[in-house]
C-alpha cells in the first residue's frame, strides 16, 4: 500500500493507546462522520504532565495512524509541550501523509488539545 508510508501502516496495524480512560481528567472530540473521520481523546494528568492518553477513532487508515502517533508523542509530556504538537509535526513523524488526506484525517492534535482545554476548564471550575 504505497499510498501510505511504512510508519503510517505500522501505527494503523498496531495502534498504540486505543481505548477510553474511566474518569478521565479531560476529553476532547474532533471531526464528524460526514467527513469520514472522528476522534475522541482521553487524558489523565499528573503534575502538569500527561500520565496517560487514550483515544477512540472512527476513520480511515490515516486517521487511525494519526491518533496513535499523537498519543505516543504526547504521553509523558507537559501540557504546554503537548500544545505544541501540530498536524505538521504529526505528519512529519508519520513520514508524510497523502496530500488529500492531510486535513481531514489529521485532526488528532486538535482533539488532544481539546482534551487539555477540557481539563483546564474543569480545573478552573474546580477552583484550584
Amino acid at each position, binding site marked *: 500500500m504505497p499510498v501510505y508510508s511504512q510508519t503510517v501502516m505500522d501505527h*494503523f496495524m498496531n495502534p498504540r493507546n486505543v481505548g477510553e480512560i474511566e474518569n478521565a481528567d479531560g476529553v476532547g*472530540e474532533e471531526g464528524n462522520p460526514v467527513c469520514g473521520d472522528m476522534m475522541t481523546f482521553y487524558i489523565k494528568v499528573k503534575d502538569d504532565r500527561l500520565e496517560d492518553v487514550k483515544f*477512540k*477513532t*472512527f476513520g480511515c487508515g490515516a*486517521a487511525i495512524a494519526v491518533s496513535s502517533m499523537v498519543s505516543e508523542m504526547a504521553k509523558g509530556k507537559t501540557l504546554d509541550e503537548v500544545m505544541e504538537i501540530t498536524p505538521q509535526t504529526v505528519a512529519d513523524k508519520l513520514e508524510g501523509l497523502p496530500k488529500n488526506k492531510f486535513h481531514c484525517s489529521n485532526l488528532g492534535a486538535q482533539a488532544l488539545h481539546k482534551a487539555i482545554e477540557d481539563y483546564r476548564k474543569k480545573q478552573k471550575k474546580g477552583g484550584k
Partner: protein
Amino acid sequence: MTRVYLDNAATTPLLPEVREAMLPYLGEIFGNPSSLHDWGDGAREALDEARARVAGLIGGSPEEIIFTSCGTESNNFAVKGLAMAQPARGKHVVVSAIEHFSVLHSARTLEKWGFQVSEVPVDKYGLVDPAAVKKAIRPDTVLVSVMHANGEIGTIEPVKEIARITRELKIPFHTDAVATAGTIPVDVKELGVDALSLAGSQFYGPKGSGALWVKKGVRIMTLLDGGIQEGGRRGGTENVPAIVGLGKAAELAAARMDARIKQLTPLRDRLIRELPASIDHVIVTGHPRDRLPGNASFCVEFIEGESLLMLLNSRGIAVSSGSACTSRALKASHVLLALGLSHAIAQGSVLFTLGLETAAADIDYVLENMPPIVDRLRQMSPLYAKFTKSGKGGK
C-alpha cells in the same frame, strides 16, 4: 497467505484466451488498419472480426459499433454527442442520480454549455422509477441516460420500461451498460435503447478497450475529431490489440454467460445472507432480487470503509468501498447517499464483487475473517461506544 480478489467491479483479470488472442497484434501484425498495403490487412481483418463479436454480444450490427478507449469515453461520447446533435430541439437532458461520474460529470459539462439537467432520484434499493423519468421529460429534452446496472450496489434498472417511454416520445435513450455487458444478457433490441456503452475491463477483456453502440440512424456528434477511423466517428489510430481482446472477451462472455451466472449467484447469495447474520448492524445495499450476479454490497455501521478495506487487505482480501476516504473527492458515495443512507452509514460501505475465480472457499474465508476485523474497528470507534452506551439495541 490466502489471496482473495473480490473487487471485480474495479477491474477483472485478463483471461488467458484473451491474452493469447492479443499477442500477435503486439508482434508481427503491427500494421495500421487504415493502411492500404499488406501490412494493414491483418489489422483490418482483426478489427472486422472484433466488431462482429462485440455486436454479437449485445445483439447489434457491426457497423453500429464504435470502438473507444474505455467506458468513460463511451459515456462522454454518448452523453455529450447525443445531446449536442439536436441543437434545434432543445437543451435538456435527464439522468438518474446514481449514474457513474462519467455520465454525471458529462452532464455537468453540458450545463456549462447552457444545458439543463434533471436528475431522477432512486428508491431505497437504487431503482429508478420509469414514471419519474417520464415526469422529468420536457418538450426540449434531447437525451435520457439511465444506466443498465449500478456497479456499486448491483441494482439492475428497468431500462426496457424506460425505453418504452422514450421511444414513444422519440427521445434518444442511452444506457451505460459498463456493469452489465458481458456479465448478464444485454440485447439492444430487447432493451429498446438508442445507444449503449460497454468496457472490456469489466468482463475479462483488456484495459483500454470499450465501445459505444449507436443505433443506425441516430445522430451523434464526434467526441474525438480527426481521421476516418470508425467511419469518421472516432479518430485516432486504432488500438488493435485491445480491440482484438475486447472481441475475444465478448465472444467468450456470450458463450459462457449462463455458466458464469450460475457460478456466481449462489456465492453472492450466501455472502448476502451470512455476512449480516454473523455481524450485527450490517445493512445490505442495493436491490434484494434485481442485482448483478457477482455483487454483494453492504454498509457496516459504526466503522469507516477505508480502514475496513485495509484490514481485509492485510488478510489478503481485496474489496472496494464507497466511503469518503476511498474517493479522492473525499465525499461519500453519491450512490449510497441517493439510497437515503446517512453519511455515517455510507462511510461504512464495503463492496464485494465476485468473479470467475471466486470459489466457495473464498466466501468461507471472508466470513471467517471479517467479523473479528469489524469487531476490532468497532472497539476503536467512538461512534460504536456512544451507541452501546446509549443502550440502543441492535437492528
